[in-house]
């Protein structure tokens, strides 16, 4: 990975980022760019596929808000074409770290085809709930993203009234994207003066020829140190939150208390990028029984809560996707009753990922634990007889 520092004119970081994206589009480097664009109401940003370079003026990839997990969008964008069909077509996708890691996971599950995609990762110090962001804009608390200027510069974070980070972002392990084709680096820099552009070796020539950007610098230490500083603060939060949660979930009785306000809307599942099944078992008729079966069950337990899929829903989802959970927290943001789903999956995900020494999104080469096996492993699972 080589880098180039780009100086920011008149302290306008956004213009510098927009300028860079515009050059990618205008110089036929990319055929389209997907990036968060300002909504007509001015109170939020949503991923948009942009063709007109002029509209990139409305783009703000640093806005601390995330409406939809981009991995799901990329799955929709790329699933309609067969391999090799669109040779030469390239779109750039501007992604936060958690989105990029989910993209990597979905690519491994064959839900995203990366042949026509250039991933453009951008540092993310955290995001706010969509409604909090909109509220902050309305209340005129300044430009909400300014609260992160210090985070970029020295790793510290001062919250602003009414604008706290989403829980998932408070415990995020990866503020900087992993393995993006192109990375826009903000952490470690006084972003009103300079930012960093990074790309792999395969892009060096194109950057020089098409953008006249010579990638000839190494990534400075100050960036690495600041990333570590943010990460270690988040890890402290993570340990604290997981410890508290683990005390609240010592047995199924406690877990059910924690989840007692779950209304089975399945929003967490619908918002989850990793839960990709087109035909979900929970939307199927698999567990539709006749009345007598329900009555039998009610007889056994005295009564049964309806609908019946409370514990089974969350535990099944844990067993299906926690090994690939990237911690984006969209599940928790989607929950109408603010259940700590993201922390629950993070806590259990850490254990399961450790079991298989797997880090979701770390590398496209690593197979997800649920889709492979080894012959020589887990012998203790089958009792002493092996």
């Amino acid at each position, binding site marked *: 990975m080589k880098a180039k520092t780009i100086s920011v004119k008149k302290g306008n970081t956004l213009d510098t980022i927009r300028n860079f994206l515009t050059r990618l589009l205008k110089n036929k480097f990319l055929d389209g760019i997907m990036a968060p664009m300002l909504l007509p109401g001015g109170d939020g940003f949503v991923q948009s596929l942009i063709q007109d370079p002029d509209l990139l003026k409305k783009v703000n990839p640093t806005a601390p808000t995330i409406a939809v997990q981009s991995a799901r969008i990329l799955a929709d964008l790329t699933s309609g074409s067969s391999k090799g069909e669109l040779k030469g077509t390239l779109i750039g996708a501007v992604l936060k770290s958690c989105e990029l890691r989910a993209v990597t996971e979905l690519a491994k599950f064959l839900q995203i085809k990366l042949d026509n995609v250039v991933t453009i990762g951008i540092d993310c110090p955290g995001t706010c709930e969509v409604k909090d962001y909109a509220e902050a804009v309305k209340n005129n608390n300044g430009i909400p993203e300014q609260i992160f200027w210090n985070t970029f510069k020295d790793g510290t974070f001062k919250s602003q009234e009414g604008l706290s980070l989403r829980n998932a972002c408070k415990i995020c392990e990866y503020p900087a994207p992993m393995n993006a084709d192109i990375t826009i680096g903000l952490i470690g820099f006084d972003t009103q003066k300079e930012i960093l552009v990074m790309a792999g070796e395969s892009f060096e020539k194109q950057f020089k020829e098409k953008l006249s950007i010579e990638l000839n610098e190494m990534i400075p230490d100050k960036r690495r140190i600041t990333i570590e500083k943010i990460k270690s603060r988040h890890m402290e939060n993570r340990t604290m939150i997981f410890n508290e949660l683990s005390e609240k979930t010592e047995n*199924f009785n406690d877990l059910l208390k924690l989840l007692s306000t779950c209304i089975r809307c399945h929003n967490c599942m619908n918002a989850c990028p990793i839960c990709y099944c087109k035909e979900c078992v929970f939307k199927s008729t698999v567990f539709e029984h006749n009345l007598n079966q329900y009555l039998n069950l009610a007889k*056994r337990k005295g009564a049964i*809560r309806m609908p019946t899929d409370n514990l*089974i829903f969350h535990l099944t989802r844990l*067993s299906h996707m926690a090994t690939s959970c990237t911690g984006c927290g969209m599940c928790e943001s989607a929950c109408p009753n603010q259940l700590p789903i993201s922390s629950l999956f993070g806590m259990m995900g850490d254990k399961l990922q450790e079991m298989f020494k797997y880090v979701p999104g770390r590398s496209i080469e690593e197979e997800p634990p649920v889709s492979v096996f080894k012959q020589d492993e*887990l012998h203790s699972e089958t009792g002493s*007889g092996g």
Partner: protein
Amino acid sequence: MAEYEPRIVAFLCNWCTYTGADLAGTSRLQYPANIRIIRLMCTGAVDTIYVLKALIEGADGILIGGCHPGDCHYQNGNYKVRRRMAILKQILKGFGYDEDRVWLRWISASEGKLFADTVISMVDELKKKGPNPINKLWTA
């Protein structure tokens, strides 16, 4: 009071363990009647959801019986279920649940004796553990 009799739901593969159970029967081997067998073509078809469903709705133990490593009729279904069950058991354990109510065992078509012995020892173990605590949780 009658002695507590655990209820075991068993998912057995058609080619190995189910045939092994059949052999136990034709060989007139005695084993407890606490087991309810569901025959599947392969243990690779056992998703965690079915194990959870049985546990939540009243089973005291789950036995998953498949072919020995390398013997799967479909090459690798038994390796797949092993990973799946390892994941499920880690989750159960994480929530303070006794994951040892779920047994995965390799029993071939010729091992009728092993099948009978497995059921005997599983019933013994489950009697020691007592009834499945989820049975009483009406909101589960």
